[in-house]
């Protein structure tokens, strides 16, 4: 039995703003290496990408009479959601071990609800 986990990567956007093309390449290589290690560990990556900065975010709040659309991310914090992976793991221990090796400072690991 395995569970899909969403790895939500939070980054300090101030740090990311000054990244040079060389640094960006290094980060991509680090992520590629990580992805290879996931496969080696027997887990499966179902998807993942980097997100554009939170300044580009638009939030839609529904539940009221009409949906309210506002500029900016849902929560304004120093660290913002900067990317994600969807990884199928044997259990939480494997997910945490893989999240630990991700080239990122803060990773929130959330089980994905199986709605099938």
């Amino acid at each position: 039995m395995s569970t899909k986990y969403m790895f939500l990567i939070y980054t300090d956007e101030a740090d990311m703003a000054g990244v040079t093309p060389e640094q960006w390449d290094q980060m991509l290589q680090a992520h590629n290496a990580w992805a290879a290690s996931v496969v080696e560990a027997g887990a499966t990556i179902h998807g993942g990408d980097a997100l554009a900065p939170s300044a580009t975010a638009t939030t839609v709040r529904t539940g009221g009479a009409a949906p309210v659309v506002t500029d900016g991310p849902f929560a304004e914090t120093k660290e913002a959601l900067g990317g994600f992976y969807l990884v199928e793991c044997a259990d939480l221990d494997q997910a945490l071990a893989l999240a630990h090796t991700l080239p990122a400072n803060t990773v929130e690991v959330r089980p994905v609800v199986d709605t099938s």
Partner: protein
Amino acid sequence: MTESVALAVERAHCSEWGLVLAAVARLLDGDLATAEECTQEAFEAALRTWGDRGVPARPGAWLTTTAKNRAIDRIRREAAMRARFPDLVREEIEPAPEEDDVIVDDRLRLVFTCCHPALAPEARIALTLRLICGLTTGEIARAFLVPEPTMAARITRSKKKIAAAGIPYRVPAESDLAERLDGVLTVIHLVFTAGYASAGERLVRDELVDRALDLARVLVVLMPEEPEVLGLLALLELTDARRAARVDAQGRLVVLEDQDRGAWDRAAVSRGEALLARAFGLVVRGDAGPGRFLLQAAIAGAHDEAPSWEATDWPGIVLLYDRLRAVWPSPVVDVNRAVAVAFATGPADGLALLDALTGREDLRTWHYLPAARADLLRRLGRRAEAAEAYTAALVLVSDGAERAFLRRRLAEVGGTA
């Protein structure tokens, strides 16, 4: 139902609850909520049937089989719907005992799952007391001074997280073991200190101390080669040896310096010392140095060995604190080390170290720092400053016995609360 049956069930509840639950949880693939229900039902069944048929020769085995059969009944009910598990057969009551290593594995799995780092620290403690020790939600709530519904919600939430987040029901891999084991030992130590520090009823506090000792003893049986496991039990034994001397006939706190050392439990001290020797023997043969629980145990042992406060090996204790600080840097260790320095080389030296720690953000709300300063100022004859420091400590202290002690000291140096 005769009194002896009730007593037998109660005794089994104390010693067997965790074993029974661990065995059922394995059968149920780590479904702890259902395992808990089946265990509860087995104890209820014991109350009903032991009266008629007598207490079985091996109550633990009877309870385990009964609880497992409840679990199998449930699996079957589900299986009937899904037409799976055709081969599951109910066990006969009182089967041959399980292999010892299977039982060891079951209990360790339960311990490591309840103390998983993905659970909040207070949730780990609550789950450990409920699932391994079998304390009721009400008892745990009273021990930690929270309303029972709050504690019930905390436990339910944790069990849900274990299931939903996929926290595995197993002993961690060798590579994670040291770190995860430290988490387990921390939970047991917190249960113990909660028993000492809790402002709750006396009976509840003793219960927590006893359960922490039980858990530490079980862990020593399960992992006899782990120095830190031996170190934790040694620490608890060597600290608890002084339980009877900690409070006087009026229920007032007696500090270590003033305790009647003749009232210390010498048997507990011997048990602790033997564990220390075993643990240090293992450390000498291994590659890692002594860990934080073993070093704290060695400090407790140095106090227990001393014939008096004055004749304590203070320089030795300072050295132990130095090593403790190296493996476990903590402001609490710094404060305790400063106090040891005060008695090794003089109160002024200790006071200088404490003054250097004053103002640290992480010590701001801890009453022990101003209380320790006050004590050294008192010894130096600086009564006005001592009174000021006692007053500062009184603002921060929450425990009633400690408050009363600080008030007495404040009066001694001529201050008023």
